[in-house]
């Protein structure tokens, strides 16, 4: 019961965070989809993938904290798909 009441609030907070982050970066949208790291150019999708994985880790920690992970099925698909979703979304927002 306690968890059930908390989940929407946390999800809403997470959504707001993501949205504000997106809005922040959307301003500088016209940027080359390639990043220079010590003289090597890395494509943007690698960065998007890393951020997506990081966000997935955060979301998983939240799920664990809310004791919600055990209700996710099939879990072997959910987290990769969540990472892919974040990756695709970030890429679409910033680099398409």
């Amino acid at each position: 019961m306690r968890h059930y009441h908390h989940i929407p609030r946390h999800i809403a907070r997470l959504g707001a965070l993501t949205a504000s982050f997106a809005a922040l970066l959307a301003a500088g949208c016209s940027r080359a989809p390639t990043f220079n790291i010590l003289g090597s150019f890395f494509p943007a999708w690698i960065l998007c993938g890393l951020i997506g994985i990081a966000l997935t880790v955060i979301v998983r920690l939240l799920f664990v904290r809310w004791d919600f992970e055990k209700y996710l099925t099939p879990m072997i698909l959910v987290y990769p798909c969540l990472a892919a979703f974040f990756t695709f979304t970030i890429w679409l927002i910033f680099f398409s």
Partner: protein
Amino acid sequence: MADNDPEVRRKRLGRIVSWSIIAAAAVTGLICVSETTRYPRTDDAEVFANFIGIAPQVEGPITQLAVQDNAFIPEGKLLFEIDPRPYQYALEKARSDQKTLEGQIVDQTRTIASQVSAVGAAKANTESAAANVDRAAAAVKEANANVANAKAALDSAQADLAYQTNNFHRIEPLLAKQFVTVDQIDQARTAVTTRQQAVEQARSQLALAQAQVASATAAYEQAKASMLQSHAQLDQSQHAVLTLDPLTAQREGRASAIQTAEYNLNNCRVYAPFDARVTNLTISRGQYAHVGQQVFTLIDTRVWWAVANFRETQLRHIHPGMRADVYVLSRPDVKYQGVVDSVGFGVLPDSTLVGTFGQGLPDVQRSLNWVHLATRYPVRVRINAPHNEPFRVSESAVVIIRGDH
């Protein structure tokens, strides 16, 4: 049941969240695929500009080098100068040759005038010869008339002689009967003798007149022959008149020699053919420049392209005239607008697939490749940027095709 109720709802919520995540991943993935298909992009791109190797059209030592490496040179500015003196001298010689020719033409004109006068003289000679012929013909006629005259005189003398002879024979028998005197007989005989001499004289006059006819005829023939000769001389002198054509025909040649010399002299100074950046300049003043041999390189900075290598599967979505975004990685925050100029039509074949071309038998590689990499073709995207935008050839770039709008 009261405990189970939230548990069931949480289970249901868990299922909804799970499948929502999977569906969202699928949907965003599909959107990404369609996005990259509709708007092909590649980071396999480089900034490019056309460039030329600047080479002189005349040879000689470089006496002035007006540019430095990496300098910007506006169109028409002097790049370098080759020692112009030999070409100046060549031009002077060509001009002097032309003047010589003009002098020869004047000389020849005078010679021709003199030959034309000679023709006039020959013509006068022919007319004089014709007059001579007429005169000789008249002389022949006169001699013929003289012959007729002499014949008439001879006839008259013969008639007179006949009369006197008859008269003598008539009166001679009368002497015996003393009807006539001896003196009368002598007179008659003398008259006969005189008339005989007159006949002889008339005959010789006739012979003389006939001889004169022969002589006049011969003179006539001679006059005709000399007339023919004078005509032949007229023809000869007419044919001997020279023409100016061999000399005037050389005028174009001499004029073109002057133009060539001027062209070479002008080419001693080499100017920038367009707004350009000097590059690969490694020489100094004094370098001996050879015809057609590059001295340094000029990058044509008027038009910059991004040459983007797109996979063959993407090419059907790329057409000349499409807009494109170009990012130059030395300034990744700046977005340049570009236009697709053209799409490449050929790259070097992959030697591991079709083998190498050569004489003899085809060199074909054995292979067990299941996965083949897509061939990439260069697409030229013209960058619309201000004229002074500092691009460099072969800078890394990213090109995103934005369609027809």
